[in-house]
């Protein structure tokens, strides 16, 4: 079969099993867009801004485990995509981003819409390629998918100069089924000696703690994790990225840890004697002050990326491998072990944890006349029976969604944890809804974040995506305002946004349903009404208590046992 470069690209994506391309056309990719014209095996989703294309592909990837695919033009197309690429990189999301480039002969001449896409994206991709010969195109694409989806996943950029996709130059094409790379062979199985050391250490623990992260979700190891945790009877805390891998409503779950983690999770981290880190990377928002992190603990760390081990915190037992394989191996070893595990083997530790839990650190004022954001999230959980896919933007609403929704399944909580990208939520929800047409998809956002990619309301209309946008509108850049209250003596510099649009009318002008809710008593009914509109996007503008803060909070540079809790006066 003789195909042009553009046709090779489209045929390759079909052969690779790609369902959706999220993209935006432009000069350098016109040959490619022409090659996709008239076929419907792959659905192209036309976004309104390239950043949204990357977030949508990212949301698709996070909710399905399959790589997201993006197609953008050279120059501004590529630079607009960078924020989304960096977002995916920080959270290890598999993604292949195809960027058009000016023709090979004019590269370096400052041609129209030329930018060094390889140079610009290098620090925020797992790898990138510039295709210089049409004969390398198919193999390069295969390598890109292979690298993006194996080992520690991540985004890969393939930069394709326009002359490579020239419709007049055709070469034979066959789908490269596999690819060999001598320089890239990720380790997937844990080392048996380290596994044995880990089992011994777990067996001797008096105050053990399991700390699991996004790696469990990425490697689809939720079932193995649940078995592992239940066999051991140890308490488990999950990172922002790991929520849902272990059910939130299970007794052994002590909630999220870190800057806005629960009192019991952070206290248990501080007091534990053996810490088992599973697919988590000891991020600064998790560890707080490094010098006082888990001061009395021996640490076991399971991760597929050797560079994550002992990067921030020195580890005693490193286990490099795919979390799914390692946990399965550990489960087998636990079955064969003569040590006794289970909650009953560590009664003192559990009674301590139950004592910490009794502080009820997530309690809030339920009698207020104003809508408390925590209440809105709890109602969202109730109305969706905890089954929704929830995307979020970045800020207070993100933390409240993480704290109060209660995720019981993996891949349901979709947020930009590492990079903290405002504007992520709505386009990510588009990718999720496209992948799960009949599922309930909620985008929890704020009036600041939603405006960073609000143009995507148009895309949602074009493709009939019935996302429910839950805007917790406090008329403040809330997280900034909170930090200014706590650490800048209430000097609210630029955290108040005036001239907000009428969101209800804005949604309606795009052809969607808009709602405005300002009484606590109306929240549940409005959510029910919104989710009953199964085929419509509903933009819910929920007017919340302006000065509510996220608690608990470990301020920057403080240790886990140094938390700021909800002031008692606010709890009536």
């Amino acid at each position, binding site marked *: 079969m003789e195909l042009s470069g553009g046709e090779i690209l489209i045929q390759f994506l079909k052969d690779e099993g790609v369902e959706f391309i999220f993209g935006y056309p432009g000069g350098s990719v016109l040959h490619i867009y022409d090659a996709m014209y008239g076929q419907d095996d792959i659905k192209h989703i036309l976004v309104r801004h390239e950043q949204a294309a990357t977030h949508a592909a990212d949301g698709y990837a996070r909710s399905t485990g399959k790589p997201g695919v993006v197609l953008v033009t050279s120059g501004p197309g590529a630079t607009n995509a960078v924020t989304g690429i960096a977002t995916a990189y920080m959270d290890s999301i598999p993604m292949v981003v195809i960027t058009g480039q000016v023709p090979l002969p004019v590269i370096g001449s400052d041609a129209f819409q030329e930018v060094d896409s*390889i140079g610009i994206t*290098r620090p925020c991709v797992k790898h990138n390629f510039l295709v210089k010969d049409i004969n390398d195109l198919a193999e390069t694409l295969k390598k890109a998918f292979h690298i993006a989806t194996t080992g520690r996943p991540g985004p890969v950029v393939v930069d394709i100069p326009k002359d490579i996709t020239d419709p007049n130059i055709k070469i034979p094409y066959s789908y490269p089924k596999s690819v060999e*790379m001598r*320089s890239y062979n990720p380790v997937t199985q844990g080392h048996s000696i380290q596994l044995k050391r880990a089992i011994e250490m777990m067996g001797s623990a008096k105050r053990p703690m399991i700390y699991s992260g996004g790696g469990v979700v990425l490697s689809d190891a939720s079932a193995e994790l649940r078995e592992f945790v239940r066999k051991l009877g140890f308490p488990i805390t999950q990172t922002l990225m790991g929520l849902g891998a272990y059910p939130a409503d299970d007794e052994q779950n002590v909630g999220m840890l870190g800057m806005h983690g629960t009192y019991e999770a952070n206290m248990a981290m501080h007091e534990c004697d053996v810490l088992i880190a599973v697919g988590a990377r000891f991020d600064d928002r998790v560890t707080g002050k490094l010098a006082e992190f888990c001061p009395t603990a021996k640490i076991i760390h399971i991760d597929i990326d050797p560079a994550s081990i002992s990067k921030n915190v*020195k580890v005693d037992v490193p286990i490099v491998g795919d979390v799914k394989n390692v946990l399965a191996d550990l489960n087998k070893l636990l079955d064969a072990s003569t040590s006794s595990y289970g909650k009953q083997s560590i009664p003192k530790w559990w009674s301590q944890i139950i004592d910490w839990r009794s502080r009820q650190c997530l309690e809030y004022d339920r009698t207020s006349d104003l809508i408390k954001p925590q209440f809105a999230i709890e109602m969202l959980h109730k109305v969706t029976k905890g089954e929704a896919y929830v995307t979020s933007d970045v800020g207070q609403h993100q933390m409240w969604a993480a704290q109060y929704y209660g995720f019981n399944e993996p891949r349901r909580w979709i947020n930009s944890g590492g990079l903290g990208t405002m504007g992520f939520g709505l386009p990510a929800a588009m990718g999720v809804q496209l992948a799960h047409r009949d599922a309930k998809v909620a985008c929890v956002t704020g009036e600041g974040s939603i405006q960073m990619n609000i143009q995507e309301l148009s895309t949602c209309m074009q493709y009939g995506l019935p996302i429910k946008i839950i805007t917790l509108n406090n008329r403040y850049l809330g997280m900034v305002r909170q930090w200014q209250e706590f650490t800048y003596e209430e000097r609210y510099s630029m955290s108040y946004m005036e001239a907000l649009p009428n969101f209800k009318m804005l949604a309606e002008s795009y052809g969607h349903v808009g709602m405005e809710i300002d009484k606590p008593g109306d929240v549940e009914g409005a959510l029910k009404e919104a989710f009953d509109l199964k085929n419509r996007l509903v933009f819910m503008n929920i007017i919340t208590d302006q000065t509510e803060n996220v608690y608990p909070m470990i301020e920057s540079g403080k240790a886990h046992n140094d938390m700021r809790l909800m002031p008692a006066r606010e709890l009536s």
Partner: protein
Amino acid sequence: MKRHIISILIENEAGALSRVAGLFSARGYNIESLTVAATEDASLSRMTIVTSGSEEIIEQIKKQLNKLIDVVKLMELSDGEYIERELALIKLKAEGAEDREELKRLADVFRGHIVDVNSHTYVVELTGDGEKIDAFIKAVEDRCVVEVVRSGVSGIARGARHLDVSAS
């Protein structure tokens, strides 16, 4: 902070050098010198990196280098016995019979060669480890150094130890 020498074999692709250089600048690692050139296998480049840092930092540097998709093999030369060499071309002001004679003698002492001569200057070619070149520059300093061009360090392990692509 101990000095460490890391050798890597990397795919001979456009941009390979910038991936390594970018890694060092992005993560704030020290880089004393970096040399790169093709090997007997045209598909591979060999790089010698001289860096310094705590044991933890050096461990991270090695892991991050290994994580680069293009890096095929990595070895810390300074983990064992090794030979390091650096080439320096040094232009010296050489005027007057006495000075010229003295510089010639110094070059001989350091086993350097004078590879260019005119009535005002000498160019001395010197090979050795970094300390030897530092010592020569110190010996002639102030008086007459016009410019110093150093290649950066290349290194190879002593004995059988070597970077082998085929070994896993």
